[in-house]
């Protein structure tokens, strides 16, 4: 396996800082956990926490090559490049001489590796700088000692240490061995570069570290793993969530040339968590033979309790739930009295369907399960979840479960749930330890996802005689992700409610958020930006509806609702989650939200004259402790043809490490937001997903993407403030900005996604 071999080879060649060469498995003495801890936040609060010992992550070879072990999954956010930039900068290394290797899964050794929640740079910027600064200081100490000069007279520069007085210079490679023998500097002795000295951090257009491999087909994604002697498998899974195999006949499948074995996979025992769904695996000499064999299976299914799940009916269930009071999850002032006394009441209801993440690389993993050990090659966001599952499943110690995490061909939340890695391991086990590659076909992916939730959002506002909002009532009804962990869970979890429902920053004295019950009838899971999608769509559409009902400008009215610049504590909004961050470090800064609104509006030319059938729409949202505003320009043709000539997106995630990758995330978020707004829907009938491939589950293609996506980054050098997330927060405001633009262009209000042909026939 390319990556694994590479890690091993580099380890052999390198002088590892602080350790004997030969392996990355380092017996570092780690400080014991503090006793009586105060509440932890951010990366420190994640399972496994943060690690910043340079000996765990860095090595420098005799030729000066710096190898950095990247512990986060690469799924298109560019984290391998961005981590390399941070380390090269703080180490004073040349980025071109930094090799980024992908760490195997090992939470106990490396700290948390769960790559989701837009957390990688947010949590690791400071630890990475500590790692690099410590290594730099070890190199400086070594050079100073070798030259017999005071430490203050040497400094790191261009991949070497220089002595200004004598003009002497030693390359990192020449110093690595000696530096490695030195103690790691204590955290409080680390000296960091100033912002003005950054060479890579914050600089635009840094080439992607994997560019050459990606453009030549050499990049190894999880599905590309090749292990000697491996077989290939696909699985026929119960078509209904909660169903199981009643009986199957493998005789015809076994006659397909190349088919080796057909085995039953047990249904999961509740809670389902990330377990495989059960079914029948067909294992063959190649993927095609396995697919062909599966088509010849004769399987009878017991559909189980969700056999009648029907998304058309379920929408009515959610609408009925949203029509009645639900569990109160935020309650400011007296909403009922304020509504009763309002000069005007406006209400609207919004619907968003299930979605599938549909990464272009379908879920796939290769596993080898032999006596007492498991080895997996895969592309997962959460390698520790693979290790935990296989350790338990095969009763082996967790350190006997090796996970080689290769490149992810997209993740979007789907690969946080590694059921596919477990399936591969089950197949290998059934084959007596022969390695098996398990692949989801696209049909498998779309029909057996962990689907984005379905949602009805009902909003009602009371306006006084001047049009000022005095009351706000939001009912959000959606099945919860928590149901995969706790069967029967039927309220949104605190982390879902805090994705734009309770943490509404509007300056409205009477504000209540309710969460009626909603039962889950399928696997619900994270989808890029998660519950922010329905919450932001409803709220930001509703703001524009209020403005329209008053004849006000939507941008001005949005700013009026946001109110004056101020810092709002999470607790004041009944936000018990705040993306896991410290409320003191991350107050809701309405000034920053206002700023992105103003920025998007001015860049988009808000208020400019548009021709007939064209319109601008605006929406803004905070998520993952970052602030985003979008202005969409649309044209609605005489027959309702929708085109989106331009989107402006303004973004404040605080300081930006890699502007090009933040921009690319925003460009992608705009396309993904348009995709879900215009086309995206997974529907169920008789418990079964009705879509099978990209003809039924359509995704935006190049001809549906806006010709112009203009990204506007603000506050990019605010390195004195904590960082925000970048991977997800671009998505939520896109759909409402689009719906608001459609209203401006055509007078048609979209309250139900996807838009699909709702504009047809619009004159």
């Amino acid at each position: 396996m390319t990556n694994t071999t590479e890690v091993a080879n580099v380890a052999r060649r390198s002088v590892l800082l602080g350790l004997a060469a030969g392996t990355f498995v380092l017996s570092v003495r780690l400080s014991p956990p503090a006793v009586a801890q105060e509440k932890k936040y951010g990366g420190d609060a994640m399972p496994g926490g943060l690690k910043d010992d340079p000996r765990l992550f860095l090595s420098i070879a005799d030729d000066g090559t710096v190898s950095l072990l990247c512990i986060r999954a690469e799924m298109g956010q560019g984290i391998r490049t961005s981590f390399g930039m941070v380390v090269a900068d703080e180490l004073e290394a040349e980025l071109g001489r930094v090799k980024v290797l992908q760490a195997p899964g090992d939470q106990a050794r490396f700290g948390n590796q769960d790559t989701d929640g837009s957390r990688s740079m947010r949590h690791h910027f400071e630890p990475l700088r500590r790692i690099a600064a410590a290594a730099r200081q070890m190199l400086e100490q070594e050079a100073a000692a070798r030259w017999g000069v005071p430490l203050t007279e040497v400094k790191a520069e261009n991949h070497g240490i220089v002595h200004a007085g004598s003009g002497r210079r030693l390359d990192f490679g020449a110093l690595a061995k000696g530096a490695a023998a030195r103690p790691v500097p204590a955290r409080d002795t680390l000296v960091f570069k100033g912002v003005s000295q950054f060479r890579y951090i914050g600089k635009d257009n840094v080439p992607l570290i994997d560019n050459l491999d990606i453009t030549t087909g050499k990049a190894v994604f999880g599905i590309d793993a090749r292990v000697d002697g491996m077989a290939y498998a696909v699985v026929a899974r119960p078509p209904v969530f909660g169903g199981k195999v009643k009986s199957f006949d493998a005789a015809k499948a076994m006659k397909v040339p190349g088919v080796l074995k057909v085995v039953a996979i047990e249904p999961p025992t509740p809670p389902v968590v990330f377990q495989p769904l059960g079914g029948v695996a067909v294992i063959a000499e190649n993927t095609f033979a396995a697919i062909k064999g599966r088509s010849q299976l004769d399987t009878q299914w017991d559909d189980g309790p969700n056999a009648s799940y029907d998304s058309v009916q379920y929408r009515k269930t959610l609408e009925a739930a949203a029509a009645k009071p639900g569990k109160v999850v935020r309650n400011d002032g007296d909403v009922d009295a304020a509504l009763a006394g309002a000069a005007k009441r406006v209400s609207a209801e919004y619907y968003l369907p299930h979605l599938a993440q549909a990464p272009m690389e379908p879920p796939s993993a290769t596993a080898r399960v032999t006596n007492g050990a498991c080895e997996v090659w895969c592309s997962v966001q959460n390698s520790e979840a693979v290790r935990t599952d296989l350790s338990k499943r095969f009763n082996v110690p967790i350190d006997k479960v090796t996970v080689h995490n290769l490149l992810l061909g997209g993740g979007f939340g789907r690969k946080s749930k590694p059921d596919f890695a477990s399936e591969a391991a089950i197949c290998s086990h059934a084959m007596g330890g022969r390695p098996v590659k398990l692949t989801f076909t696209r049909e498998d992916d779309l029909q057996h996802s962990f689907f984005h939730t379905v949602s009805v959002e009902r909003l009602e506002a009371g306006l006084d005689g001047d049009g000022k909002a005095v009351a706000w009532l939001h009912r959000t009804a959606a099945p919860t992700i928590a149901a995969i962990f706790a069967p029967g869970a039927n309220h949104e979890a605190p982390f879902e409610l805090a994705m734009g429902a309770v943490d509404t920053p509007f300056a409205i004295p009477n504000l209540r958020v309710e969460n009626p019950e909603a039962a889950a009838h399928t696997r619900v899971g994270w989808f890029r930006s998660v519950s922010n999608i329905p919450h932001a769509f409803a709220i930001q559409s509703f703001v524009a509806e209020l403005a329209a009902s008053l004849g006000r400008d939507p941008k001005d009215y949005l700013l009026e609702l946001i109110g004056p610049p101020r810092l709002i504590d999470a607790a004041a909004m009944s936000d018990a989650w705040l993306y896991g961050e410290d409320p003191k470090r991350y107050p809701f800064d309405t000034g920053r939200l206002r700023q992105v609104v103003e920025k998007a509006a001015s860049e988009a030319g808000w208020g400019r004259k548009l021709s007939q059938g064209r319109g601008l729409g605006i929406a803004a949202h905070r998520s993952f402790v970052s602030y985003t505003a979008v202005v969409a320009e649309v044209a609605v043709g005489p027959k309702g043809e929708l085109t989106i000539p331009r989107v402006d997106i303004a973004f404040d995630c605080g300081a930006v490490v890699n502007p090009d990758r933040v921009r690319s995330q925003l460009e992608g978020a705009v396309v993904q937001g348009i995709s879900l707004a215009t086309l995206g829907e997974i529907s169920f009938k008789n418990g079964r997903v009705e879509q099978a491939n990209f003809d039924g589950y359509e995704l935006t293609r190049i001809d549906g993407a806006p010709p112009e996506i203009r990204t506007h980054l603000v506050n990019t050098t605010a390195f004195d403030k904590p960082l925000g997330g970048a991977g997800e927060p671009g998505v939520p405001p896109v759909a409402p900005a689009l719906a608001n633009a459609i209203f401006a262009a055509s007078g048609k209000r979209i309250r139900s996604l996807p838009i699909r042909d709702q504009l047809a026939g619009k004159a």
Partner: protein
Amino acid sequence: MSKFTVNGKAQSFDGDPETPLLWYLRDIAGMTGTKFGCGRALCGACTVHVDGTAVRSCQVQVGDIDGQAVITIEGLSADGMHPVQRAWRELNVAQCGYCQTGQIMQAVSLLKDTPKPTDQQILDAMSGNICRCGTYPRIRDAIKRASGRA
């Protein structure tokens, strides 16, 4: 027995003639630069050139390409210096990168037939290739950049 070439190298295959070229390349020949995305010619991830024409390798049966020449991303250029590959890198087109080999093979085919495509011709030629990361604006710009050189 089907005999054909892949990137100039002779291949022979006497297995199931219905085996799609995609799975032959990936599982049997061990060339994983060609990607599986949908299996139904709906996404373009598996695009290769057969006798100079861009095709979806998931729809081409190995039994049907006897005597033909297949070029995959691995064989597009010796060193990754095809103008399209270079343009892709210069604009940092890729996000996850998974669909990009198919996108590049499709773009190369477009520029071969239409060296100076209009925006509309780019959209028409590339609309069969899905990118879930949403790199479309950069794909378009990279094709334009390469069109001056290809």
